[in-house]
C-alpha cells in the first residue's frame, strides 16, 4: 500500500519510493528511504503528518502516493 493508505497512529516501514531520481534523492536526505520506519501521526485527504527519524514532517498527498509501505505491526492494518 502507499503511505496515503496507512492508518493514523500506525507504524509503517518504507519499502520503496517511486519518484524521479532528484526527488528521490531529496526524500532520502530527509530520511524517507527504504527500511525507515515512519509513525503515522495524522493522515488526511490533502496530506498528513509523519514522524520520520524523530522529526515531524508534513507530507502532501502527491508525495504520499509515491511511497510504498508495509505495516510494522499487523494489528494496525
Amino acid at each position, binding site marked *: 500500500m502507499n503511505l496515503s493508505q496507512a492508518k493514523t497512529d500506525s507504524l509503517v516501514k518504507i519499502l520503496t519510493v517511486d519518484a524521479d531520481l*532528484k526527488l528521490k534523492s531529496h526524500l532520502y536526505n530527509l*530520511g524517507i528511504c527504504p527500511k525507515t520506519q515512519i509513525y503515522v501521526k495524522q493522515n488526511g485527504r490533502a496530506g498528513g503528518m509523519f514522524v520520520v527519524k524523530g522529526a515531524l514532517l508534513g507530507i502532501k498527498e502527491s508525495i504520499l502516493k509515491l511511497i510504498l509501505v508495509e505495516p510494522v505491526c499487523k494489528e494496525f492494518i
Partner: protein
Amino acid sequence: MQRIYLVGNPNAGKSTIFNKLTKGNAHTGNWHGVTVTGESKYVKFKDREYLFVDLPGINGLVPFSPEEKVSTQAIINNPNAVFVNVIDINNLARSLNLTLQLLELNLKVVVLFNFAETIKKQKISINKEKFKKILKINAEFVYLRDKNLKNKIFDLVDRAQFSSVDYANKLIFNNDNLSKYEIILARQNLSENNALNKKYSLNFGLDKINEIRQNFISQIIKNSEYSTKNKEYGANKLDKILLNKFTAIPLFFAVMLLIFAVTFGKIGDFLSNGVSLFVEFCGDGLIKLLNILHAPKFILDFFDVAIIGGLGSILSFLPQVLLLFLALDILEQVGFLSRIAWLLDPVLSKLGLSGKSIFPLLMGFGCTTTALPTTTALQNKQVRTKTALILPFMSCSAKLPVFSAISGAFFGNGNIFVIFGLYLLGIFLAFILAFITQKILPTKFNDDILEFTPLRLPRLSVLLKNYFNKIMQFINKIWSIILIFTIIIWFLDNFTIKFEFITTENQTSILQNVATFLTPIFAPLGFDWGAVVALLVGIVAKEMVLSSIAVLNGVTKANVANSLLDINSVVHFSTASSLAFLVFCLIYTPCISALAQLKNLVPKKTFWLFLIIQLALAYFVSLVVYIITGIITGVSFSIAVWALALAFVIAICVFFALKHFFLNKKGCVGCNFCNKS
C-alpha cells in the same frame, strides 16, 4: 586567510553560531529558509584571519532549490576550506546524512552539536569521543552561553584535517579526471551527463549508495551510544491547537488583527507622536540657531522643509514600522509560521501557491525587498515565480506613513479601518492574480514537504539584535537614498528652470513644469501635479511619498495631514481622491530596490508584463474607488466616466493579451510558468 563555511540542515542554528563568532547580524529565525544567500564576514582571532561564510541549510549535496544550490556550489568549489557542520543534537540520525556526504568528498569537516542546552531536558546521551573516533573528525558541543565557546570553535577549526569515510574508497575510482562530486553524482545516476551515469552507476545507483549511508549512520548511532527521550522532535502538546485547522487558523487571524490593532491603533499612534514631538523640538532648536546666525532664507527653508519636514515625517513613523517588524519576528521565532504554512497549504495550493509561500508573503508586510529573496526557498519553480509576483501586493511598512497620514487627515479615528482595509485589498488582489494565473497556467506539481520546527520561546537577545538591525537599516535608508532625493525634490520644487529661488506665487518650479505633462493622465483620479510627483518619487522609495508631500506643501509631519485638506496646498485631496491615492500607492510599482530583486527572480518578459499589469491595475482599481467614493460624497466626474470605459477596454485587452502570451501555440516563450527546467 582560512575560509570557514557553516553548513548543516535547515534550522540547525548556523546563523546563530555565525553571529556569535563574527558578531554579525545575519537574520535568524525558527523557519526553514531564513538564510537564502551566503553571508560572510572577516574575523581576526589570535593574529589569524578567517573568512566565515554562513550558508543556507541543505539536507544533502544534490540541490533541490536555488537556495540549496548556493550551498552546494560553495562546498564543491572550495575543497580547501574548513566545513563546520552544525548538527541539531536532537536530530542526529537525519543530520548525519549531510555529514557523510561531506566526508565522501574528503573535505576538512568538524562537527558542532548545537542546542546542547536541551541535552538534559530531552535526556539525550551521546558519547562524543566514540563519535569522533568512528568518523575520525573533531566534534564539540555548543552551549551558546559558554564564554569560552569562541576559543573552542576556533581551536576546532585550526585542528581540522581532511577526512573521509571508509566506504568512500569504493565510490571514488577515477580514470576520467572528474571531481569526486561528479563521480558520486554519477554513481547515484544523478549526473546531467547520461554517459557518466551509465559508466559509474553500474553496481551502485541511488538506492545502493543510500543503503550504504544509512547502514553507516545506524552504526554511528549505535557505537556513539546516542539516545534521546524525545522521539517526536518538532511535535509539541500545543500542536493540538496549533495544528488543528479549526483552532489554529482563527487564532492566526486573531493574532494578525491584534498586530495591526497595536501597530496602527493607540499604542502605535502614541509612540509615533512621541517621536514626532522630539523631531519638532530638535527642529525648532535648529531653526532658532540658524536665525541667530542670520542664515539666508533658502537655507532656512531647506532645513525647515526638506530636512525637518521631509525626513522628520518619515522618522515619526519609525515606532509603528518597528512594532510590525517585532511582531512578525516573534511569530517567526516561536515556530508558529511552519504550522500555519501547513494548514493554509490546501487553500494556497488552489491558487497555485504553497503553504510555504506564507513566510515570504508575511515578510512582505515588513519589506518587499528583503522578502523577495526568501522565495528561493520554495522548491517548485512555478510556485516560486507566482509567489514573487504577488508579493509586492503585500503592503510593505514603507507605505505605512502615507496610509497613516492621509487616512488620518480624512477619516480621523476611523483611519485604522481604512488602513486595515487597504491591507486586505492588497491581499485580495494578490490572491485574485494568483487565481487567474492558476486558471491560465496551472501549477504542475507542488512537491513540498514541510518540516515542523520545534516551538520555542523567542530569545530576547535575537529579538533585540534583529530589532536593532531593522532600526539601523531604516536609518541608513533615510540618511542615504531618502535624504538625497528629499534634497533633490526640495531643489526641484523651490527653484525655477533658470535656477532662481522661488519667492513669489507667479514663479513655477522645475518640478511643476515636468509634472504638468503627466498630470492629465491622472486627472480622472482627482490627482493634482503634486500628487503625481509624490507617486513618481515613490518609485525610488515608498517613504519618499510622504516626505515629498511634506516638502511640496512646505510643512512638518505634524501639519502634513491638515495641509492635505487645504486647497491652497500643492498636494491636496478630496475624500474620494485621497482614497484613490491610497489605493494607487498600495498597488502600483514597488520601489526600485524591490524591482531589482524581482528582476532577478522572474524571467525578463514576465517581469515587464507584470509591471504593466500592476500599473494598469493600480489605475483601474483607484478609478473604481474614486468613482464609488465620489458618488457617495457627491463629486461630479464626467471625464472619469469616459476614463473608466477606456480603462475597462484596456483591462480586457491586457487580459486577453496575457492569455494569448502564455498560451502561444507556436511554442514556449520562456515564461517559466510551465515548470520546465
